[in-house]
């Protein structure tokens, strides 16, 4: 049993690991043989060396960005689910407000960030709000879709037994929307990281508390390509960690009853 599990785990983790190692190897060899100019290109080993040398700074930057991502993500979960619940309560409300939520998706963050700096000053709150704005829309749409897709007979069953609106929400609407909410969370998790890093470009300057976005800006200005790569790699790792956390929550909530969680 234990051996079987280890094999299954290897089957899952093995292929992407091989792709990763192969890519790094090709990249390193490419840089080694072609010897492009160092400030235009660098190999994985350069990135690694630079990362280790600046481990303290990069660690602190990652921590800063992580905090902003978590705040923004938490806000969009709470506010997104709440708005979807309110919008789902009446067709009129949905028709009145839903078109404006599209703005969230279409207005470029770089254009809003300066306003946030004016209102909130540069710093963690402004960056968190950037992460929030970017990740809100998928939570609202997916939660709304989930609530709307609850089969009519189940809604009528609750009406028949004269369930309170409260019961309807917590015993039918929210649990019924969980699979869709999880989809929204998955999309929002990645977007929150992008939102925070981009937000930091504009609104991240906060003394010595610098996030990954600031590391990117500074490294780009000074032509420190390895640091640039290191920051990008850490931002991706952060995104992957967020996604992993969301998948873990999805598994906990749904593995017993939902088809999407089979064979995991």
């Amino acid at each position, binding site marked *: 049993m234990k051996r079987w599990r280890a094999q299954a785990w290897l089957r899952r983790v093995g292929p992407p690991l091989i792709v990763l190692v192969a890519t790094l190897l090709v990249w390193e060899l490419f840089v080694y043989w072609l010897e492009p100019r160092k400030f235009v290109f660098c190999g994985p080993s350069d990135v690694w060396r630079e990362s280790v040398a600046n481990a303290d700074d990069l660690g602190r930057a990652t921590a800063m960005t992580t905090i902003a991502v978590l705040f923004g993500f938490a806000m969009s979960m709470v506010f997104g689910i709440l708005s979807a619940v309110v919008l789902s309560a009446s067709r009129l409300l949905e028709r009145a407000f839903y078109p404006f939520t599209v703005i969230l998706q279409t207005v470029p963050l770089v254009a809003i960030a300066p306003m946030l700096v004016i209102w909130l000053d540069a710093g963690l709150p402004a960056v968190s709000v950037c992460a929030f704005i970017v990740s809100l829309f998928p939570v609202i749409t997916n939660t709304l879709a989930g609530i709307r897709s609850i089969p009519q007979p189940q809604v*009528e069953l609750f009406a028949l037994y004269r369930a309170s609106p409260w019961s309807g929400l917590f*015993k039918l609407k929210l*649990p019924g929307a969980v699979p869709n909410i999880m989809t929204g969370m998955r999309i929002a998790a990645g977007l929150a990281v992008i939102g925070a890093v981009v937000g930091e470009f504009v609104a991240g300057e906060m003394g010595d508390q610098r996030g990954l976005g600031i590391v990117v800006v500074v490294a780009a200005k000074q032509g420190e390509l390895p640091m640039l790569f290191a920051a990008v790699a850490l931002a991706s790792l952060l995104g992957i960690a967020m996604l992993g956390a969301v998948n873990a929550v999805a598994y906990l909530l*749904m593995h017993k009853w939902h*088809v999407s969680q089979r064979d995991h």
Partner: protein
Amino acid sequence: MPITAQIADDASPDECGSHGVGLQFAQVERSFAGTAGRVEVLAGIDLTVSAGQFLALLGPSGCGKSTLLRLVAALDEADGGTLRIDGKAIRKGHHPAADSIAFVFQEAHLLPWRTLVRNVELPLELSGIPRAERRDRAMHMIAEMGLTDAWDRYPAQLSGGMQMRGSLARALVTEPKLLLLDEPFAALDEITRQRLDGLVYQLWRNRRFTVLFVTHSIAEAVFLAQRAIMLSRRPATIVANREVTLPLERTIELRNTVEYNEQVRELYRDLLVAEGSV
């Protein structure tokens, strides 16, 4: 179950203490907005259902059988006429007997995130019955449906027939006086369907609630019901209201008797009238 004990097996429900409610429909009308104006679905339905009766509603598909059922459950409201339950008018959202009605849909519609027992408990939970009592009552119903082994499984782990039994258990756990079934076993295979028909019939015999059973199968209607109503095509009126004169004891063998098949044939003739082909 105290109700079971009180009733002698072969007594007619009209004579002995029925636990059902009576229904009175007078000129019930319902129409819906369609693409080309209003579509009249029910055009003046007059019908009386006595307490404890098993009534089958037949008719061409799309004729308004389900609409009638939804009106009784106050899930929809009539445009004209009155529906009364034991003499008291039913209006949407205001049901004089909401506590004593149960509805079984075409599909089981158990909540997929709840185990079987938690699904059966749901109606009791929504009316605020304490945890221990509702677990007890739910487990009794589950046992009566022959699902004891599956009590803590999720709906996705149950067969279609088992899910439907679960749905019946959920409907009956509140001890309803009126059971509304909307083509409940239409999606099941024939053998499972006949078995569940037998189960519903036994549950009715033991409890004597009133049943409105919507079906498009004449054979099923004759097998189960004491009275069968045939509705016409839209706008629906009642084209036949027949008493099913078969013994109270109904088993699979009944389907091979001359009497049974004679009743089926009569209703087929009614169906041809309902379809407008005679």
